[in-house]
C-alpha cells in the first residue's frame, strides 16, 4: 500500500516526478499544470464535461480533473507532452494542423490524446465510432468537421492508402 502525506512521486511521460507540499484534494490536472509545469492539459469545466484535460492513466483516457492526483501514485500517466518521443508533432497533431482542426486550440490537447487512444485500440474506426470516442471532448470553434477529417486522414495514412 502507499500512504501519501504532502509528498509523493508520480510517473509522468515515463519520468519520475516529485510532488511536494501538496494538499490531499488536488486533482491530477492541477498537479500536472501548477506543480509539474506541464501546461498541455487544459482546465475548463473541472467536472469532466469538456474533455480538454484528457490524459492517459494506465492506458485509459480519463479526465485528469477527476483523478485525485495522489491516487495516481504507481500509475503510468501520459499527457499530450508525452505522445511524441522526440518532441516533434505526431501524425495526429500534424493532421489536425493540416485540416484546420486547430482553431482557438484550447480543446486540441484533449482531443489529440483522445484520438491517439482511439486509434491505438481501433485502427480503423467507423465515422460513428469516431464520434462516440470524441463525444467527451467539446470543441466550440470547428463544428467538428475538420477534426473528423483529420482523424480520417490519419487512419488512411496509417493504412497506407493515402499520404
Amino acid at each position, binding site marked *: 500500500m502507499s500512504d501519501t502525506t504532502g509528498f509523493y512521486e508520480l510517473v509522468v511521460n515515463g519520468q519520475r516526478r516529485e510532488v511536494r507540499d501538496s494538499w490531499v484534494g488536488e486533482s491530477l490536472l492541477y498537479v500536472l499544470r501548477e506543480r509539474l509545469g506541464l501546461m498541455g492539459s487544459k482546465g475548463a469545466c473541472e467536472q469532466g*464535461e469538456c474533455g480538454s484535460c*484528457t490524459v492517459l492513466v494506465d492506458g485509459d483516457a480519463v479526465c485528469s480533473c477527476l483523478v*485525485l492526483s495522489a*491516487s495516481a501514485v504507481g500509475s503510468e500517466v501520459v499527457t499530450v507532452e508525452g505522445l511524441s518521443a522526440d518532441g516533434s508533432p505526431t501524425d495526429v497533431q500534424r493532421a489536425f494542423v493540416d485540416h484546420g482542426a486547430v482553431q482557438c486550440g484550447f480543446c486540441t490537447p484533449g482531443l489529440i490524446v483522445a484520438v491517439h487512444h482511439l486509434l491505438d485500440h481501433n485502427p480503423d474506426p467507423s465515422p460513428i465510432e469516431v464520434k462516440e470516442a470524441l463525444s467527451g471532448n467539446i470543441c466550440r470553434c470547428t463544428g467538428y468537421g475538420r477534426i473528423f477529417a483529420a482523424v480520417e486522414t490519419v487512419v488512411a495514412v496509417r493504412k497506407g492508402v493515402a499520404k
Partner: protein
Amino acid sequence: MTVHMPVSLDEAVDLLVANPGARLLTGGTDTMVEVNFNRLKPTTVIGLRKIAALREFSISSEIIEIGAGVPYARMESGPLAEALPALAAAARTVGSPQIRAAGTLGGNLGTCSPAGDGLPVLAALDASINLRSPKGRRIVPFADFMVGVKRNARSADEIIESVTIVPTSGFQDYAKVGVRNAMVISVASVCFVHDRKSSSVRVALGAVGPTIIRPRDAEAWLAERVDASGVLPADDAIATEFASRVAAEARPIDDHRSTAAYRRHAIETLTRRLYLRSTK
C-alpha cells in the same frame, strides 16, 4: 491529510476502521467534482482503485457478481454486456468515454443519486449489494439499500464490495432521456426486464423520485396479462395501459434539469417503447 491506496479489501477495511469518516474513492467522477468546486474538503481518502478483487466480475448461469470497481467501459461490450444487456445499455449512456473509463457501480451506489444510470438496472434485476466490514460480509437487497436522495444503507465501517444478480431469461433494456444524446445526466430513465422463468416484468424508474422507483402495482397488473409460457402480448393497448400505470407511480419533481410533468410523460413514452421493443 492522507491518501491511502490499499491493494486488498482487508487492508481497506482496516484503514476505514482506523480512519473513521475517511472518504472512499473509486473512479472519482463524483467526488472530484465536489472537491474541485470547494463543496468537499477531504482530509483522509481511501482510494479503492488498486484493489484487484474489486475490479473483477464472474458470470455463471446461476449468479453474476460484479466488483464495485469495475468501470462502466467494461460493461459496454464483452461478456458482461452479453449476460446483462440492460446494464450494457445503461453503461453506454454514462457520461463520455473518459467518464466510463473511470466510473463504477460502486461509485454509483456510494453516491446514490436518483439519476445514477446503473441504479435502475440494479433495481429492476433485484440485485444484492455486498458490503464488507470487520464483521464480515453483509448482503442488502437493492430495494433496501437506497433509502433516499444520495442516502443509502451503508454503515460507516462498510465498503461496497460487489453486486450480485440472478440472471433472468428474456428481454431486458434501458432507456433514458436527457437534453442531448452524449454526455448527459438522466432527466428520466427506465429499465425494463422481462423474465420468462417467473412470467414477470420488472421495471425501475430513475430520476423521477427520491429513490429508484419500482412501479409494483403496474408490474402486478401486467403479470396477470402474461400467459403461462411467459410470453408478453404484442398488444398496443396493453403497452399503452401499462405505460400509463407505470408513469402514475413515478414521483417526479420540478428542478433545474426538467419539470415533473415532462418527466412523467418521458417515463410513459420510454416504458411503452421498451414494452413494444420487448415483444418484437
